[in-house]
């Protein structure tokens, strides 16, 4: 990285002496065989390009670009080779980690009769996933239905939380008075396990299903409020100054400046919310029953089908992982900094 800076300075500051820029790419290309020198070539030509874009009028830069586009085909190949190498390097450690986990599991299973090993579990899983969407009445449904109804509860509870939490966050972020008013309330309620709210939900809604959704609402709402509020507070003063000198109306300020600036924070809030919601739903369903992955785990425990419990653990983990990845992808798509 330091090489970049050194060359960049030489390129810009010493522009009256074009030899410095014109020579270095050639001399570096003479020994293209070693890794280091290819790196230098790319750096120097990148700087030359950069300078040319900036100041295409000056003749010094015109000269420096003229000497640049040689041997780029070779560089292209080494780049691909390096990328494959890096990809393999990235893949090996996680795969190794998973292997160790399965190995440990097999070891424990060998020494403990009640826990099925990887192979037995795999066989049970193939049977289970042969027909994930069967339905024999409310208490006997395929694993696919169970996962989907859990996801539905998370979706509905989270949806309500977003509907309430995002506007709340905007208000808290924008008005210090309201913020300070709600601060003690939020500090008091946030550490409470959402499951503690389950009886209240049962009491109010009289049915298990909305009560489970209610716990999801409670656990999702805090990250939504807090992250949105933080995002609003951190909108750079520069952007607000732009809004002021342009004299934008309040609705334009919200839609064109506040909302896009807060969006990355909001997406972080959504990710945290859904993450916790997925943790909580399993526990809530164990308590409320019905259809859902948490209930299914409990049911299989009652049936003493331990391999199904292990499968459920994997399914819960994989679904949670996919949710997280999807939301990270979404966040990356909408974050203006990394774009």
């Amino acid at each position, binding site marked *: 990285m330091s090489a970049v800076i050194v060359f960049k300075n030489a390129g*810009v500051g010493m522009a009256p002496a074009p030899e410095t820029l014109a020579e270095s790419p050639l001399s570096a290309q003479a020994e293209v065989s070693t890794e280091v020198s290819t790196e230098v070539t790319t750096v120097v030509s990148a700087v030359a390009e950069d300078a040319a874009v900036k100041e295409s009028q000056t003749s010094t830069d015109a000269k420096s670009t003229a000497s640049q586009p040689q041997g780029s085909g070779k560089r292209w190949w080494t780049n691909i080779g390096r990328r494959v190498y890096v990809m393999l390097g990235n893949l090996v450690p996680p795969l190794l980690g998973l292997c160790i986990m399965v190995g440990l599991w097999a070891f424990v299973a060998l020494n403990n009769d009640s826990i099925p090993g990887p192979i037995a579990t795999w066989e049970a899983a193939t049977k289970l996933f042969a027909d994930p969407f069967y339905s024999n009445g409310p208490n006997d449904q395929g694993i696919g239905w169970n996962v989907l109804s859990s996801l539905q509860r998370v979706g509905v509870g989270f949806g309500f939380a977003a509907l309430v939490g995002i506007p709340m966050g905007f208000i808290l972020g924008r008005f210090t008075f309201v913020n300070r008013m709600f601060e003690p309330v939020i500090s008091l309620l946030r550490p409470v396990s959402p499951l503690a709210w389950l009886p209240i939900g049962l009491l109010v809604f009289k049915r298990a299903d909305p009560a489970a959704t209610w716990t999801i609402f409670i656990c999702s709402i805090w990250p939504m409020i807090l992250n949105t509020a933080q995002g609003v507070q951190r909108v750079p003063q*520069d952007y607000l*100054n*732009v809004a*002021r*000198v*342009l*004299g934008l109306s309040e609705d334009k300020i919200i839609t064109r400046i506040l909302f896009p600036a807060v969006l990355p924070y909001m997406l972080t809030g959504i990710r945290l919310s859904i993450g916790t919601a997925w943790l909580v739903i399993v526990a809530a369903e164990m308590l409320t029953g019905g259809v859902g992955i948490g209930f299914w785990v409990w049911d299989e425990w009652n049936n003493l089908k331990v391999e199904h419990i292990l499968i459920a653990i994997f399914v819960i983990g994989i679904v949670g992982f996919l949710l997280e990845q999807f939301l990270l992808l979404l966040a990356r798509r909408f974050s*203006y900094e990394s*774009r």
Partner: protein
Amino acid sequence: MSSSDMSQTNLDHQTEVKSSTKPIVKVEQVGQTFKTRQGNFVALRDIALDIYPGEVVTLIGHSGCGKSTLLNLIAGLTLPTSGVLLCDNREIAGPGPERAVVFQNHSLLPWMTCFGNVMLAVERVFGRKERKSKLDARVHAALDMVHMAHAAEKYPHEISGGMKQRVGIARAFAMEPRILLMDEPFGALDALTRASLQDELNSVLAKTGATAVMVTHDVDEAVLLSDRIVMMTNGPAATIGEIVTVDLPRPRDRVELANDSRFAEYRATVFEFLYRKQLKKVA
């Protein structure tokens, strides 16, 4: 006023402007005190300055003397604690579209393209009166003026610092302001880019006959661009020390001026003020 008659009778022109036309901006005995944790901090005192139509005025002074504070007062981003500022004989009570601002750090909104950034300003000023096609044309004309038409659909992070500053200037000009306020617009750029942007600004100002107030700490930039250079004393309680009227013909060519004795004299005057009379005591 065209640039040609400025170059012919520049001295007469300056005095003539002052006697015949009314100032756009009047700064009358303005003071600015900030409340800080260590008590009150007097940043500016007794600032009196008239800015006339078509004039380019630069504010120069050591860092921290209150140049930005004064510019923000004219922009209406802050209000003075004493005295009054007038724009077209009306008190400045807040920002207004007749006073466009170019920020030092360009302040383009990163989630909009260059076109979108300029459009935001154009919409605000002309959106009620004009059709969409006319607004589009305005945006394109503004980008074209600073030679950024090719980057209309690019996002700010996709273009260089100098280009961003160009778009910032386009955004300000697109509002057709009465007066253009710039706070060290080229401060963050390298020397070559800065020079080409200075030349561009000079030609755009000449083309539009715009009035401009610009903060700078670069003496050459001040002499090259200004009709008057306002030199500020050191803070705290900074005020205007001296004002130099720059009677150099326009259009100004930096290469020719480099050998011009008058250019050297103006430069020397400003240097004298900054480094003899107002030498900053470095702790």
